[in-house]
């Protein structure tokens, strides 16, 4: 790691004052599970590391009339175990619980999950976020078995966030604070597919801190289904998170969001449309799965992920249908 100044603010106000208007100058440290590796590999060489773990206002989960508020410092472990989250946002609870390493669940925070950098091995080996060489991405003809099957570049990495798909499907809002004040963005607009090497894969600005998440109150069924090869620490190959508002036995409205298949969580309006107005059966779930991947464009090695995404959508829908609303 390159030497840095370590700052330990006690308030959000103080923390944002330590950030910079430019990426690369300062980094925010929470759980450390990603940032410390990024710094070891010199992918991040901040001049200042702003540890936000002593900021009390970033902690805790509260249920209010406005919904469930989840502080950025809530760990995956706390999130997975929280009764309110389990009761009204099961897809989120399950997504956190599915991380197969207790140590990562103990350390990793909600904010960190959303702000972590891609695991793309080209990025991690220093070829840049878009892995460009001579104006062309290395990914489509390279080792792309774990890469994107949606979107047509230039970013081919997959969003690594475990919580992103569930948060988007649940219609969550994310609060970002800078010295100029707070702003709220929909989870759906928080993730972006970067168009060039200098942009980021999230809507956070370099002088902002992600402070909390708000999940709106709603009576919904929700589920997250992950296809993960190992049952020990491993990344999912594809996930699907669904939120359903039911009218009797039929789906009144639906959100279907896929994870680990594109540079951002992939909101599939096609799948939602396919299931809306229908009762969830093996056939309708299968049809929604097919609709979800109709526009997939796999790379040379990852056609199998199209199948996984389709199956994940189907199984997430069937899983959600089993729940009491």
């Amino acid at each position: 790691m390159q030497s840095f100044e370590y700052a330990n603010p006690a308030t959000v106000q103080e923390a944002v004052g330590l950030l910079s208007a430019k990426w690369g100058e300062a980094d925010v440290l929470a759980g450390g599970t990603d940032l410390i590796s990024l710094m070891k590999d010199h992918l991040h060489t901040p001049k200042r590391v702003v540890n936000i773990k002593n900021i009390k206002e970033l902690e805790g989960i509260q249920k209010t009339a406005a919904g469930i508020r989840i502080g950025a410092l809530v760990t995956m472990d706390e999130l997975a175990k929280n009764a309110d989250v389990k009761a009204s946002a099961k897809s989120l609870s399950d997504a956190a619980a599915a991380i197969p390493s207790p140590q990562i669940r103990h350390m990793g925070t909600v904010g960190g999950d959303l702000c972590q950098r891609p695991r793309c091995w080209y990025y991690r080996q220093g070829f840049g976020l878009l892995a460009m060489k001579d104006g062309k991405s290395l990914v489509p003809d390279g080792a792309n078995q774990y890469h994107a099957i949606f979107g047509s570049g230039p970013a081919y990495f997959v969003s690594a966030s475990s919580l992103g798909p569930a948060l988007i499907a649940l219609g969550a809002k994310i609060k970002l604070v800078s010295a100029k004040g707070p702003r709220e963005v929909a989870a759906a607009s928080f993730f972006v597919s970067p168009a060039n090497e200098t942009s980021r894969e999230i809507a956070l600005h370099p002088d902002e801190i992600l402070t909390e998440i708000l999940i709106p109150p709603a009576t919904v069924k929700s589920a997250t289904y992950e296809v993960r090869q190992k049952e020990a620490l491993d990344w999912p190959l594809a996930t699907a998170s669904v939120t359903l508002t039911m009218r009797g036995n039929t789906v009144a409205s639906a959100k279907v969001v896929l994870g680990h298949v594109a540079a951002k969580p992939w909101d599939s309006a096609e799948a939602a449309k396919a299931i809306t107005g229908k009762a969830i059966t093996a056939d309708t779930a299968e049809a929604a799965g097919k609709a979800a991947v109709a526009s997939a464009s796999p790379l040379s090695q990852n056609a199998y992920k199209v199948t996984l995404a389709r199956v994940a959508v189907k199984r997430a829908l069937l899983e959600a249908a089993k729940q009491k609303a």
Partner: protein
Amino acid sequence: MSSTKDPKTKNAVSRRGFLGGMGIGTGAVGAGLLEREAIASPAAATVAGPGAAPITLNINGKPVSLTAEPSVTLLDALRNHLDYTGAKKVCDRGTCGACTVMMAGKSVYACSVLAIDAQGKPIETIEGLPVDNPISTAFVNHDAQQCGYCTPGMVMATKGFLAEHPNPTLEDVKNGMGGNLCRCGTYMGIRQAVLEAAKNMKGAKNG
């Protein structure tokens, strides 16, 4: 060095002396830092580094002091700056569990914690357990180790796991030990060792 104080509140600019003294990374820390701080650094910010800073850790119930860059991980502090070598450096990227220690009562990967950030939180390493503690003994009883390089991490992961699951089933053990890897293939023994340790630790509590 035996300072027991937290990193002091200092004006960030004064830290630049340390940086020069360290002699590395100077190229990267240019005028940008100064300019930015001139604009944004709040007076009350608690900062340390760049350059070596006094760090005091609470290890196995005792305060231990060292002087290290803020970039030094807890694992490197334990292994290199101090002499707690039970935690091993294997992947150094938070994927294998060989460096597992307890911090504030939870199992964590020491390779992914900054030493300076571990201040004020009780840290328990395997050296804090007696040689014949019930977890290690259960590992020996079930031959749950071969080369043994993953074992201290496994033992500390077990401690963390049992703190949350004092009465686990075999299925709980399989689910709760997923953050640690073994290369020699000792998982069958580990499953039994964790179950036995749970039994013996409860017995100890009752007795």
